[in-house]
Structure formats: structure tokens, C-alpha cells
């Protein structure tokens, strides 16, 4: 079916795809457009609630832990690692798609496995970070009593400091805005669910590749479609990263 496309070729005259993509790829692009609005709505909601609050915790202070590093203050170090892992998994996905173009089954399998590994590592990092936030308690002054609370969807220990009040060598604060945890867990959770779905799709792709399905079909376009989804989830993370950790 390879043809030279003459100058002035008319793409919209019917009988062919105007964007020269299969309907499946077109559908994936349209789905991603739709999903952009899902995330867009969530992030804009987060923005409106955040700016309506008189006080918002400093991310450099909240996200400063690293596994096995004890109480060392390493602002954003761990999330940078997570982001790096996810971006590397996009690179390996590109390589899988590239091998698919060459119809090299072994190559596709190899790079899909690396992508799956990257996805799982990211999810593992997220699990660690969530656990650390939920279980890592801080002294907070509630109704005149100092209590140790962690960060959950309905509690937030990262409020303004109470001047001069210390507890076990830690600065005591008042409760922070509840929306902080609600939005953090809500949106990173929703994104994590997307990553999880992507990993599942990639595992499916791996088994289909191994089973020779795409060789029989004559093309590896399905890998490309899942790749589009994977890069999209990666891109969404960049925005989540920006909104929760950097700003």
C-alpha cells in the first residue's frame, strides 16, 4: 500500500482518512483529548481551592524525605527520582514502538518489559510516599492539646507554626488546610490509577507480542496506541508534579 503522495493530494475527499491515521489511533487521540479535560478539571479545582485558602503548606517542607535516609532534609529529592523513572519508562516505550516499526518481536518484548518495570517502580515509589505521608506524624495543636497526626485526606499537620511551642524537639503547628491532603491523594491517586491501567495494558501487549499476534496482523500499531496512552500519562504527571511539588 506504500505510495508516493503527489503534491496537492486531496485528503478530505472521502474514501481515506484525512489525517492518514487508522480509526483506532484517531480514537486514542480523541480519548486522550477527553482525558485531558478530566485531569484539567481536577487540577483547576485544586487551584481554585488552594488560592481561596489563607495558608498553604510549603511542598519543600512536606516532601523532604527519602527512603533509608532517616530525618535528612532532602526537599523534592524522592519525587525527582520518581519523575525520572517515569520519564525513562517513556523512553523505553518509544524504543518498543520503534522496534515495532521494524517488526522486531524480540526488541518489542525487551523494551516493553523495561517499560512495565518502570511503571511498577513508579507505582512502588508512590506507595512509599503515600505511606510516609500518612504514617509520618507531626505535633499539632488541636483544641488546646498537642496531638501527633499524619497527612490524610481529612487531616493535615502542616499548618502555620505556633511560635515558641515545641514538642519532643519538634515545632508544633496548628492544623493545615484539609484540602491539601484531599487534593494530593485524590489527584495523585487518580493519576496512579492511570499509570496502573497503563502497566496492565503494557503487560497485555507483552503477552500479545509474545504470542505472535502482531506478526500475524502484519503490524505493531497496537503498541503505538498503548504508547500514546503511556506518554500521555507521563505528560499528565509533569503537570501534577508542577502543581503539587513545584508551585
Amino acid at each position, binding site marked *: 500500500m506504500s*505510495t508516493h*503522495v503527489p503534491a496537492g493530494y486531496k485528503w478530505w475527499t472521502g*474514501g*481515506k482518512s484525512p489525517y492518514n*491515521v487508522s480509526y483506532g489511533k484517531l*480514537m486514542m487521540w*480523541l480519548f486522550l483529548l477527553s482525558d485531558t*479535560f478530566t485531569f484539567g478539571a481536577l487540577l483547576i479545582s485544586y487551584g481554585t481551592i488552594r488560592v481561596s485558602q489563607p495558608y498553604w503548606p510549603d511542598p519543600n517542607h512536606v516532601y523532604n524525605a527519602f527512603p533509608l535516609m532517616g530525618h535528612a532534609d532532602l526537599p523534592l529529592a524522592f519525587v525527582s527520582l520518581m519523575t525520572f523513572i517515569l520519564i525513562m519508562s517513556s523512553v523505553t516505550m518509544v524504543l518498543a514502538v520503534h522496534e515495532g516499526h521494524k517488526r522486531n518481536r524480540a526488541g518489542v518484548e525487551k523494551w516493553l518489559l523495561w517499560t512495565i518495570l518502570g511503571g511498577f517502580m513508579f507505582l512502588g515509589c508512590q506507595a512509599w510516599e503515600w505511606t510516609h505521608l500518612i504514617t509520618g506524624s507531626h505535633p499539632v495543636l488541636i483544641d488546646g492539646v498537642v496531638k501527633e497526626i499524619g497527612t490524610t485526606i481529612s487531616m493535615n499537620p502542616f499548618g502555620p507554626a505556633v511560635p515558641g511551642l515545641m514538642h519532643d524537639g519538634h515545632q508544633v503547628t496548628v492544623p493545615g488546610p484539609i484540602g491539601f491532603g484531599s487534593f494530593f491523594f485524590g489527584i495523585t491517586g487518580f493519576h496512579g490509577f492511570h499509570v496502573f491501567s497503563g502497566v496492565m495494558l503494557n503487560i497485555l501487549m507483552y503477552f500479545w507480542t509474545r504470542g505472535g499476534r502482531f506478526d500475524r496482523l502484519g503490524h505493531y500499531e497496537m503498541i503505538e496506541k498503548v504508547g500514546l496512552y503511556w506518554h500521555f500519562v507521563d505528560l499528565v504527571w509533569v503537570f501534577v508534579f508542577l502543581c503539587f511539588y513545584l508551585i
Partner: protein
Amino acid sequence: MSNEIVIQHGVSEQEVHEHHEAHHHHETFITKYVFSQDHKMIAKQFLITGMIWAIIGGLMSVLFRLQLGYPDLQLPWLEDIFGHWAKDGKITPEFYYALGTMHGTILIFFVLTAGLTGTFANFLIPFQVGARDMASPFLNMLSYWFFVVASVILMSSLFVQTGPAAGGWTVYPPLSALGDASQGSKIGMDLWLVSLALFVVSSLLGGLNYISTILNMRTKGMTMTRMPLTVWALLFTAILGLLSFPVLFSGFILLLFDRHLGTSFYLSDIVISGTKILPNEGGSPILYQHLFWFLGHPEVYIIILPTFGLVSEVMSINARKPIFGYMAMIASMFAIALLAFLVWAHHMFVTGLNPFLGSVFVLLTLLIAVPSAIKVFNWLTTLWRGSIRFTPGMLFSIGFVSMFISGGLTGIFLGNSTLDLHLHDTYFVIAHFHIVMGVSAFMGMFAGVYHWFPKMYGRYMNNTLGYIHFWVTLVCAYVIFWPMHYEGFAGMPRRYYDYAGWESFKQFVELNRVISFAAILSFLVQLLFVFNFFYSIFKGRKVTSKNPWGANTLEWTTPIRPGHGNWPGEIPEVHRWAYDYGKDGRDFVPQTEPVGKDETSH
């Protein structure tokens, strides 16, 4: 890379499948009628499911109109049917609110979105662009079955002890977020949210298919500007749904979290039942309204746009004239689709919205009047000096234009924030949106059903019953909704259970009775339509020629009862637009006919 590229031809899975298995193609009852992947069958499934929902939703309005028209009436048989929901034969206030909420939800989402778009997008898109089926028949089937699951869940909420969701179809928090706040905010609300979330999935799957089919699968020669306006309208509808439903979905996720996980997205500083202080802090119920209306406003265009297309098509065919201003029609639909995303806050003028922001939304809202008026004038000029055939489909098309004008004009009142302060949440609003998107959309839908019934079932619907259906519906619609404008001007609020206690509204007792009478009558005449529909499937007059209306579009080039794949041979090639009626002395020229040498250009 060189410019060596593979050109993707518009081929669906279905077509490939047909080629491979043309000789051993056998369908069971299950694959043909239940899990069908044929766009025609899926369209009929959507239509009949929508009709069942319309009867249920319509019956609900009859029940609450009984309360409004005859507040002192006691009907013991109501208690026999509804038990404690109609104690002493009188609808309880909780039941009344639930009825109103479910009536809105069912009619807006399940009938006029799924029932309307699901039917005509599935039926007409592949036919009119010249495709064997939807791009992905499998996802199309899933779309229908997600709709069924959503339906089953919503239906089941009618049977739980605490009743279905109540508090309005918009389910505003904090009322909807707090189970302790009312009966209708308990399990019924969860079922409502889950049902609607599944509905969004169904709508997404359908929309992806509609857009991909229209863009990718047009037959040879079918350029975008040769497509019938039905297809254009359905394309814009699908794009609106694709971009607005996900925002509603996000809003629902946050609402479910607030209900069950103790988050504070929409909640702040709440004392419930005068005693219990809730710990929620910092959320905003207004945030929900923004998310809701970002869908909610495009949603009304999702409802009305398909009927724009249906009416244009039916009207042009039955006036035996080309549609007036084809390109202007497309441009206005584009403008409406674009503006649909920029006007949502006109539903929120009384929320304490910044008046300056309000004025921006007033301007954008009033701008919609321009493309709407262009469309109305184009329909009227299409009728002008036409050789009109008054088929039931044509009558409903004309009725649609009448309703759209009447309802559209009151939209200009409501779009002004200053006037809206007075009219907000009154019967004026009820009258406005019922006329402009309720009755109008139904008129358009009926036009479509009467007109394409012969293509769906190979038989005609009964004309006499059709005429009775049309005239009674038209008269009743005006009798029901016209007086509501006056009630609204007088400040009569919507959603109240009983107006007898208000000195200001006692004058409307008789008027409310007239409205209720007309509402019940119009419900009964819809049952006549339902009878006509099912009777005609089996006993209607048979269609004897391929193209009974003398229409130009491709669906009338298929066999009277087309099989799976629509055309037995090759898909026809298209050489002209869809509206060559009364051209060069010829009554109609089908799209498949090549342009002659000395033919005038349109």
C-alpha cells in the same frame, strides 16, 4: 523519513470481517438482537430503551403534576402502588422531590442524550457517510451496554427504602454530599452518581466512534461539505460530549469522595440538623456548580444539536427544496458548539458571582442568539415557496421551529443577569428550558422517528395517528408551558411542593390545574405514539420502493431491509451534496449521480 507513506483507507473491522467471512456468516438470536454489533440494531436498541425511559420519566411528571394541580386530592390507589411514599393517597414531600429529580435526570440524560443521539448517530452516520458500519462496532456495542448497566442502576435506585436521589437533577452539594441531610441523599444518591458515571463512559465510547467514523470512513467523493447536515450536527454533538462529560465525571469523583471518604472538596463549616458540627473545612459548593455547568450547559446543546440536523434534513426533503444556507448552517452549529463552552456561569448569576464576570457571561450568552437566529431564518426560508408535503415528520419539523423560536426568545430574558436575579429558579426558567430543549428536542426526535421509520423497519407508521399525535402534542405543549412564564414573572419558585400557603401564588390554583390537565393529556397522546410505533413495526404499511421520500442521501440507496454491511455490493461513490432538490427541472438528484456537463452549479 521520505514522503513514502501508507495511506489509511477508511476500512472498519467490520468490513475486513465481512470480506473474510461473507460465505459462512451466521447470526444467533444473541448476536443479532442482544449483543449486536450492527449499527442499525444498536440504534433501535437505543431508541426502544429511550422510549421505555421516556414513559417512566413522563409518568413521574404526571404524578407530580397531580400534586401541583390538585394539592388536596387523595387517591387511595397511589398508596396501594407506592406504599409509604404516598401516604393516605397523597404524594409525600420527599417523594415529590425525588420525582422531580428523577424526571430531570431521566429525560435529560437517558432519553434526550442517549435515546436521541444514540439512536440517530448510530443509525444515520454510517448510512449517510457511506460506511458499512461504525469504525469500531465492538466499542459501539459496549457503549449501548454501558448505557443499559447505567439504566439498571438508576432504575434500582427507585426501589431502595430511602428512595432515589432527590434535591434536583443538578445534585448540588452540600445537600447531595451529606447522607444525613435528607432521605434523597442516602444510598439513592450513590446509585445516581455511579449510574451517571457509567453513563459518561457509554457516552464517551459512543462519541469516539461517531467522530472517528465521520472523519475516517466517508465513502469516496463524500467531502465534508457534501455531508448532510444530520452528520454535521452529530459530529458537533459528539465533540461537545467528548470534551464536557469528563469534567462532570471529575466533579462526580470529588463528590463521591466527599460523601464517603471525609474529604472537603465541596464542604465547609456545616452544622447539620442544628446540632452536629461537621469537621469539613475549606471546600466550596460553588466549585461543584462550576464543574457541573461546564458539562451542564454544553449538555443542552448535546440535546438540541442532533435535532437541528434531523429537522434540516426532513424539512429540505419535504419542502422539495435545497436547505437554505447550507454553509451558514454548519457555521452556526460551529459557533454554537464553541460558545457552548463559554457560557456555563449564566446558570450561576445568583451564587455571588462577581458582577463583572457575570457581564462577560451575559455577553457570551446573548451571542448565541446570533447563530440560533441564523438557523431559524434558514429553516423559514427553506419552507418559503417550497412544495411542502405535510407528512408527520414534516409537521414535527415545523413544530420544532415554532418551539425553538418561542423557547429561544425567553433565553434572551434569562441570559441577562439583572433579569435573571428575579427570574432565577422560578417557573419562567421551567417554561424556558422545557420549550427550548425539552419539547423542541422531542419534536425533532419525533420528526426523525417518523421520517426514518421506513428505513428502520421497512414499514410506515400510521399517518392519522401521527397527525393526532402532532396536534395534541403541540397544543398541549403551549398550554402547559406558556402560562408558566406568567407564574415565573410573578415570582413563583420552582421545586415547591404546595403553593397554597403563599398569598402571592393562590391566584394560580386554577392555572396550575389547567397545566396539570394538559400535561396528563399530552402524556396519554405520547402513549398513542408508542402504540403506533410498535404496531407499525409488525403491521404497518409496507415500504415498496427503495427511496419512498424521494431523498438524495445514501441510506435510500440501500435495500429496503439492509443487511449487516448496508450495501450488498460496492459502497456507492458520491458526486454531489445532499440537497439537489428541484434542480434544473428535476424533483431530486441523488448524491450518487455524477454531475452532468451542462448542469447549473448550486
